């Protein structure tokens, strides 16, 4: 089973991650799993000499999670993926696709009757989500 599981919170997540980086850990990936309708478990996996270490962050769907991509650059891709698939948003991403990593930007066609309107419920107003967030992965 999972050894070395450290629970973290939104506040100390970046601090913990930075600590791991100083300790020489290699970033592996993030895994996101839905616990119930609007609670998610996000696991941060790190590796040092083939030993894995995990951080577990449990959040509700509308929390804005601080991105760890300023610490580990490689995290931007997987954080964008979670943004696309689960509709959880990360703050401070180095490269932010705003939900369009997997989906093309929606082209607004004013003369076309049937335009698909992107729902904006989970976006933060100032940054409209241009792709459709329908691709949510919820079990």
């Amino acid at each position, binding site marked *: *089973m*999972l050894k070395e599981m450290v629970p973290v919170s939104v506040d100390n997540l970046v601090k913990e991650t930075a600590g791991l980086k100083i300790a020489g850990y*290699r*970033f*592996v*990936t993030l*895994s*996101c*799993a*839905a616990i119930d309708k609007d609670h998610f478990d996000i*696991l941060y*996996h790190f590796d040092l000499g*083939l030993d*894995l270490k*995990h951080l577990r962050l449990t959040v509700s769907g509308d929390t804005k999670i601080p991105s760890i991509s300023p610490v*580990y*650059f*490689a995290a*931007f*891709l*997987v954080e964008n993926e979670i943004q696309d698939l689960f509709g959880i948003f990360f703050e401070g991403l180095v*490269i932010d*696709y705003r939900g*369009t*990593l*997997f*989906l*093309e930007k929606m082209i607004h066609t004013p003369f076309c009757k049937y335009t698909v309107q992107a729902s904006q419920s989970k976006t933060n107003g100032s940054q409209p989500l241009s792709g459709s967030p329908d*691709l949510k*992965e919820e*079990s």
Partner: protein
Amino acid sequence: MLKTVIPFGPQHPVFPEPIHLTLTVEDEIIKQALPALGFVHRGLETLVDKSDFHQMVQVVERVCGICSMIHAMCYCQAIEEIMAIQVPQRARYLRVIWSELSRIHSHLLWLGLFADSFGFENLFMQFWKIREKVMDIHEATTGNRVIVSVNAVGGVRRDMSSEQLQWIQSQLANVKQEVARLGPTLLEDYTIKKRTVGKGIVSRDKAYELGLVGPTLRASGIAQDVRMLGYAAFNELDFEPVLGTDGDCYARSKVRFQEVFQSIDLIGQAIRKIPGGEVQVTVKGRPEGETVTRVEQPRGELLYYIKADGSKNLDRLRIRTPTFANIPALVTMLPGHWLSDVPVIVLSIDPCISCTER
């Protein structure tokens, strides 16, 4: 200087699979590269809701055609770990043999595609010709050519007779000889070296920091190979990770080229040591718990996160494939190079897009 934005892909002659890169170029020098994915996203991870955990073996095999055997092995190992199943020793050795066979054929395929990326069609043909022998071994021992479907939770579904093992060894000796004959062309040819040496350099520290995996990481001089964890029967076999030093395209192709020989050697060792006995145990009950398993794919470290709640279907299956970890490297590798080097550099990480997007 005028800036131009060039869309590269998703359809491009060198890409076997669709990936899109938005390249910002100045003159012909790349200033910025941004990848975009999602052209072949199939949502296989969500199929856990429909298929039970035995049927998922066949689903994860289809994440990627080339490393299908290793995907299934990783998945089975994860379930076996959750359910505390002891896999028979012979099955472990057979898994090593099949997974190393898929490493050989994947590397040969990549070496061919890589040759194709700088326009060396003849070398491409030669590598793929050799690869056909490995595919034949697959078909003769498992019944299928590419998606071999030999793994099951609790062991493997096919056994090999001792004649077959001998036959594999003689076939591989043949493969080894033919690959070795292409070595001087790939590694010493003047034109190829001009196209690969010093292109797309990732330094040792940068590679570690970016979390790169597999041959891309080892070419930068870091001895990280998940096989060292000793899953399946790798703990009883003797091998050292193949290392490069320069971290450029040349080093990456050299590492992969040498890994072909390493895999042939590992199969030889496994055939010599393989014990007799059962190959599969019956599995009763349902998995409950969560786990993370890693195995080494031809492209690098593959990670499965599985969460099971004791029902027929798994709760969550998360697959992190090696190419996904290697894509951030492109963002840092490409700037500063000529536009004409983009195909070579992109192919040097061995992108497998259907893996990446599941």
